[in-house]
């Protein structure tokens, strides 16, 4: 380990809890890289999480998510809240590399100690959220951020897993998205708590607005009906002239309203539970797999199984059954 941070986990977590961005940054890296310490660290971090407001912002590339978020940050900062931002960008399927450009939009907060921004690559993980996002959010919570904003690329239905991490999910649409709109309707609109039509100054905005609101109710029926997305909020998040900005206050208000609803209706508890459930299954999946492959390693069994399946003597399902019965004595 480098000279850059205290070596042992306790001190690392201590400095995290005291709000050290260095500690947070390093810990996020460890989690991202699935380092061997991850579990140990998360054990220490976990107790200090779950108290922050977690807001998700999702939408297609170029829909202006970052620009919206920078305004949200500004508003939250005006209220004196500490803000953490996780901005997830897709990794290149070819090189595995990623171009993380969101920070350009957050430049206004470049020097603000009360804002912690972290860009993440999806590292090929489907669903717009990097595999480790939920852990990263926990770390940001533990760091003492009152608000954690999660920005993800809404590619379509596989976006759905954002709801397991965030409490309030904002879906950002733009006019003239053509067929993408359909995908949105069919897919992630179902997970949206707040729908925003950004770039509302573009031609066709009005029609688009009408269509969207028409489809809202349909979408709502799929959801917990206590909260209805009354309407679509038209916004203009990026304009060279401040006077041309639109809908920011309305958006903030909608977020507040939704949060109030969550807490009053205690739906928040269900969401927290869902989130934990999701985490559990993720951790299980990983750990059980690790556990089993560890057990298999050296025995040469794994190769035999694969060979067997190849030659049609058996199939994955039978194999898993067999393995589980031996390892877990079910």
């Amino acid at each position, binding site marked *: 380990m480098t000279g850059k941070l205290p070596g042992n986990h306790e001190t690392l977590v201590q400095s995290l809890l005291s709000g050290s961005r260095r500690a947070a940054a390093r810990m996020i890296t460890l989690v991202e890289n699935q380092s061997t310490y991850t579990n140990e660290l998360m054990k220490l971090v976990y107790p200090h999480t779950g108290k922050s407001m977690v807001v998700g912002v999702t939408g297609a590339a170029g829909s202006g998510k970052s620009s919206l978020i920078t305004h949200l940050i500004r508003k939250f900062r005006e209220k004196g809240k500490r803000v953490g931002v996780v901005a997830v960008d897709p990794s290149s399927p070819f090189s595995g590399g990623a171009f993380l450009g969101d920070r350009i939009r957050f430049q206004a907060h470049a020097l603000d100690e009360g804002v912690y921004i972290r860009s993440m690559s999806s590292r090929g993980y489907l669903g717009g959220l990097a595999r480790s996002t939920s852990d990263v959010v926990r770390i940001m919570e533990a760091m003492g951020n009152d608000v954690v904003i999660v920005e993800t690329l809404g590619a379509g239905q596989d976006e759905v897993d954002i709801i397991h991490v965030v409490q309030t999910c904002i879906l950002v649409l733009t006019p003239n998205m053509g067929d993408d709109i359909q995908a949105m309707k069919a897919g992630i609109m179902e997970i949206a708590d707040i729908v925003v039509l950004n770039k509302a100054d573009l031609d066709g905005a009005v029609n688009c607005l009408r269509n969207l609101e028409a489809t809202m109710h349909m979408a709502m029926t799929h959801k917990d009906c206590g909260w209805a997305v009354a309407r679509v909020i038209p916004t203009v998040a990026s304009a*060279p*002239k*401040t*006077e*041309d900005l639109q809908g920011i206050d309305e958006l903030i208000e909608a977020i507040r309203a939704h949060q109030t609803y969550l807490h009053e209706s205690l739906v928040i508890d269900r969401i927290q539970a869902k989130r934990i459930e999701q985490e559990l299954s993720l951790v299980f999946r990983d750990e059980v797999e690790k556990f089993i492959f560890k057990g298999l390693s050296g025995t040469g069994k794994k190769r035999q199984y694969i060979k067997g399946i190849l030659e049609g003597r058996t199939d994955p399902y039978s194999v898993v059954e067999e393995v589980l019965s031996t390892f877990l004595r079910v």
Partner: protein
Amino acid sequence: MSQGQSLKKDIDGTCDVNWDDYLKSYYEKPESAKTWSGHEMKELYTPDDLANKDYKTEIGDAGDFPFTRGIHRNMFRGRYWTRREVVGIGSPADTHERAAFCFEQGGTGLNTIADVTYEMGLDADHPWAQSEVGLTGVNVTSIKDMETLVGDIPLDKVSWSLITASTAAAATMAQYVAVAQQKNYDISCLRGSIQNDPVHFRYCGFRPACPLDLSIKLGADVMEYCTRSMPKFYYTTLNMYDLREQGITAHQEVAYGLGIAMCYIEELLRRGLHIDDFAPRFTFYVSCHVDFFEEIAKIRAARRMWAKLLKEKYGAKNPRSMQFRFAVHTAGCSLVPQQPLNNIVRIAYEALAAVLGGVQSLHCCSYDEPMCLPTEKGHLQALRTQQILAYETGVTNVADPLGGSYFVESLTDKIEEEALKCMKEVEEVGGMAEAIRTEWLDRKFESEAVLRQKEVDAGDKLIVGVNIFNSDAETKTPLGVQRISEQSALKQISDVQELKRTRNVAKLRETIERLREDAACGRNSIPAMIEATKAMATTAELLGTVRQVMGYSYDPMEIIESPFN
């Protein structure tokens, strides 16, 4: 054989040659049959390639529509192209000293170039400016600076080229005129030019200073003002060169350049000017890159396209409106810091291409530009290069000496064809203004630039010293390095602060108010700027006021508030 033995000792190991490789290189041939811009070239061009081409209408003599062969019948016999070398470094005083000396030498043309802080529209005392004032040119903050810059140089005897490209050009114009009027010159007699192409300048790193609508407004303000009040002044040098430096191809350079030109033209027409009122004063700045013939063809194509555009699209009647008047800057991005003296070679034939293309004004890069601001020696070498071309090579004897060449004429057609495609593409995204607003053009520049680098990485484009014959790395610049002292800049900053303390604020506010009104009512802002300048308004104050009216932050860097709110 004693000597033979000693010889063996001498040679073996020292410098051993692989004779097979040598033979390979002996039979070497060019890898690619493509031009720099990627056009596949035929092995041979013959009369068949020009078969269905009518000389009179398609090519035309030099001086005749469509001016493919040049805008003057007698080309360089009338006069040589202007050999411009830019002056302007450090404080206004430094710059004046150099300019004044050029004038004493009988110079009739002066160039002064703005530094980044001035182009950004910042006063010398702006927090962002302080460490950079005077680094790459000169900052003119107040009329005082312009007075110092002009000094006693008689403005009616000199053609002054003011190289300010961004929206700050409006301030420069105002400051120049203000000084001229205070010195009782009849401004309608002033000759010279101002670069004034804010739209393109957003792509040169001055986006905060050059939002699209503000750029078109102020750019057009200067153009309109000159057209009405300073008929002898060239009010814009539309900068295709900077676009090319982004990494785009020859035909894109022409297409996007003309596209931006159309933004201004349409604004000026909207303001009720007739095309022939102003078009004759429209000038361009063109690049000359390393592909010799392609650049010549590009220039010829641009001339023809401009002529047709002005005649057919804008209904120009005056032939002078249709003449593509241009200066060339040899391509800075074609030079490399490896084996720097090789750049003299590149510059030499890039400049030749410009001359064969019939250039009106030429600026040769200094061979040391990829390393530092041009040194005196570098400048001089660049100037000598032009002089050798002018006086020793005989290439100035004939207008368009390549005219008729099967290859050059075909390539000219090819570039025109490709450029027209690009312009159509722009049409399809809703015209140039839309292409800029939606950042379509940004994306174009980015992808093209990456492409260029990949071509070099992959060796599809060869650059001597970079991806071939790149054995040796040099540790020193052959003829030394240009450095700038920060002293003069510091003086200028304190002067500005002093000025702001001591000026008559009441008078200032009046003029700023008028500027605000004019801008608000969509009137031309230059006259008000001139008055404000005379009342000691600074560059940032002039531009900031208009910015606010247009709904932008007073300060492009968004850290200073207007003192007039």
